[in-house]
């Protein structure tokens, strides 16, 4: 069976030494590059299924690499960001990166993110109208939401927000993306709308809204809907 090919563009040797064997042991095919130019050349020649891209590269700005990748490929890109790059992180996500991992990250976290990102491509054409997880069942075709079998009433905006999160398929959605999808172009800048609706959605759909398990806040970035999490 053809295993997904992952391209790592990361200048730090220590991280490559950790990433390559970790991914290989999970039966991924792995390519690695230490510079932006090398990475872009490999991306063109091998057309990987996923790119792990470090934002702090020596020869070129990570953002520029992302833009170039996006100019010809829709394959998932996961950003590796250092602690002081919060703003770059959001910019990268808004410009088409699929997800991010903040350093330092553990192997389990890395593999979980890769699975989510790859699921997106591998199942892109499978349109399942029913999404379930953690006691939630959402029928996108009939616009019905049930929690533990109980039908939940959602306002139109609640539902649009929920839908936007589901479309991300477990990946993070930035404030800007959600505002644009739910409120349209006029919503930009009104992050507090989003926060208020998110709080209402949590009150309706989370067992304990002060300990969200599924509607997860990514501080300074946005939100992530993790339907696989067990809502106990």
């Amino acid at each position, binding site marked *: 069976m053809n295993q997904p090919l992952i391209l790592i563009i990361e200048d730090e040797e220590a991280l490559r030494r950790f990433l390559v064997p970790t991914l290989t042991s999970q039966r991924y095919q792995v390519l690695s590059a230490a510079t932006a130019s090398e990475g872009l050349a490999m991306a063109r020649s091998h057309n990987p299924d996923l790119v792990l891209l470090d934002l702090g590269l020596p020869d070129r700005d990570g953002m520029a690499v992302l833009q170039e990748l996006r100019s010809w490929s829709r394959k998932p890109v996961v950003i590796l960001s250092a602690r*002081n790059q919060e703003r770059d992180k959001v910019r990268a996500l808004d410009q088409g990166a699929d997800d991010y991992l903040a350093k330092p990250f553990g192997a389990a976290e890395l593999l979980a993110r890769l699975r989510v990102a790859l699921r997106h491509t591998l199942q892109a054409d499978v349109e399942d109208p029913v999404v379930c997880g953690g006691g939630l069942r959402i029928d996108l075709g009939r616009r019905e939401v049930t929690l533990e079998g109980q039908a939940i009433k959602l306002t139109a905006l609640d539902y649009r927000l929920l839908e936007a999160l589901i479309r991300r398929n477990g990946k993070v959605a930035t404030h800007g993306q959600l505002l644009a999808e739910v409120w349209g172009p006029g919503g930009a800048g009104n992050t507090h709308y989003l926060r*208020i609706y998110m709080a209402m959605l949590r009150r309706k759909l989370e067992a304990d809204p002060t300990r969200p398990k599924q509607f997860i806040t990514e501080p300074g970035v946005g939100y992530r809907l993790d339907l696989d999490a067990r809502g106990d």
Partner: protein
Amino acid sequence: MEATSRPILVALGSEAQSLRLIHAGFRLARERSAPWLGVYVDTGHGAATEDAEQVQVWMQEAQRLGAEVQSVEAPTLAQGLADLTRRTQAQALVLGRSRDRWPWARLGHSTADELLRRGLDAEIVILEDRPPSSRHPSPGIRLSAMVGTFLVMTVCTGLAWLTHRGGNLSLVLPVYLLGVTFIGYQWGSALGILASALSVLLYNFLLETPRFRQAATHWPNLLFFLLMLLSTQLMIGLLRRLRDQASEVRRRELHTASLYLLGRALARSLDPDEVATTAAEHIRRVFKAQAWLLIPEGDGWAARPGSLDVAALPTPAELLPRLVWGEQAGDPLEPVPVGDAICLSLMGTNRSEGVLRILPGVGEPLHPQTWELLKAFAVQIALALERLRWLEEARKAQLESETERMRSTLLGAIGHDLRTPLAAIHGAAGSLLLPSDMSDSTRRDLLTMIQEESERLAQLLGNLLDLTRLESGAIQVQKEWQPLEEVVGSALGGLERRQGALPVQVELPESLPLVPLDAALIEQVLVNLLTNAQRHAPGREIDLRAWEEPGWVHLEVADRGPGIPANLQERIFDKFFRLPEAGEGGVGLGLAICRAIAQAHGGRIQVQDRPGGGSSFRLALPLDGTPPPPPEGAL
């Protein structure tokens, strides 16, 4: 002795001109970077007439401008100066023309001429007397004054005629006297003299009988005219002086009051911006002119208050020397016209703090009479700026020593805290690499330890970085209005995802308003507080509550741990401070970060004993600014 270091001598006396000599000497000394000497020659017979106190004042002024002062005794001025010039090997001698008291001394026998004849090896600079500026420029005779004169004379003549007809001759003279005095006082001496003559003629032609007699041939008439002229001029002079004195007193009072007000306002100013605003306001009130402070910044100017096109101004390198050396007078405080405006150097104790630029209002020219007050203003402003600069320098020095002290504490603490986990990781990795038949469980233990210790290292480094960035201002607090619930959820949810369920009771009223906060930072405060609570009272209930109070939102994390001794409740927020009984884990940065974050939000964090045991940490966040509008069609 080299020419450049040979001194410049300035001959001082008690006259007002000495001030100009001092400034000229100062300027010359600055230009040639030479030392300079203020000299007073005591010729013995002059000492009685010359005001010794005034000499002292000039000597002090010279000293203020960096001169050495000296007083010598000699039979003549020229002798004394010549001796001193030779003795000090002076390169130049500055003196004024008016040092010679008698007019004939100027005809080839002046002190300067005599010095020249003595063939001194020094340049002799003679400052001419400045023509005394007329204090009251006589206004041209205006039409209104002529008409006024005519009217007054008519009224006087009418009155005189009436009294004359009544046979009372003695009243004629006082009537005219009063009229002419009034005219002279009101419209100037020219019209006064004219009125005197006119009154004699009028008296003659209209009142004397028989009329049309030749006025000038009649000697009592001439006497009458002369007396009239003399007495009116005398009275006018007295009245004028009285008026001048009164207005001078008023002016001084005004000067003193405005200086006092400025000084008091400046003393309260806390930064250069405030100084500039205060100065501009006072100058606008007193001089009806706009004012800016120009403070050198890099190669250009920083103009305060408000905006000013500084690019159009001469650069500091160009303008400052012009002002400091004085353009003509050599007075470092003399106002100098630059373009439409007037500039004054803001001379502090030993250097210029900047420039005061004054733009007179339209139709409100700055009269040279007000320059003295303007200079006094400039000195006050300069001293205020200097005081602030010194304060700032002292604060910087203190900060530097503080930073230095912190750095050594930091190094000591980090050294230990970094080395311990590193040693453990290094050791464990080493033994894993040894060829041995280690059991799988031992191997797992070692690997787990490596993971845990490296996590601890990462946390320590992260905390250190955060704290440094918070304290240096590298982290900008990005406040956004948001529900507290989200931050609490993010902190608690995150902790529980990593460590499993925590015994935390959350109590957040649904009525809580949106709070302006930086979510990532406040989340860290909560994580630190919850982690601490858990560490000091493992397994025991933790309460997390929030409530609103006008202008503030309070967030409390309360535990049932051993509590914190009252005398340490402030210190636990210090960097690297750990409770003596605290066990493993933690490096004493968590609470310091919490405090830095609270302060960056304009809020505060405190700890207090909790009734029933344990401690309660309270974070207060200000509800400042206007909350955003609620979403359309919501709620």
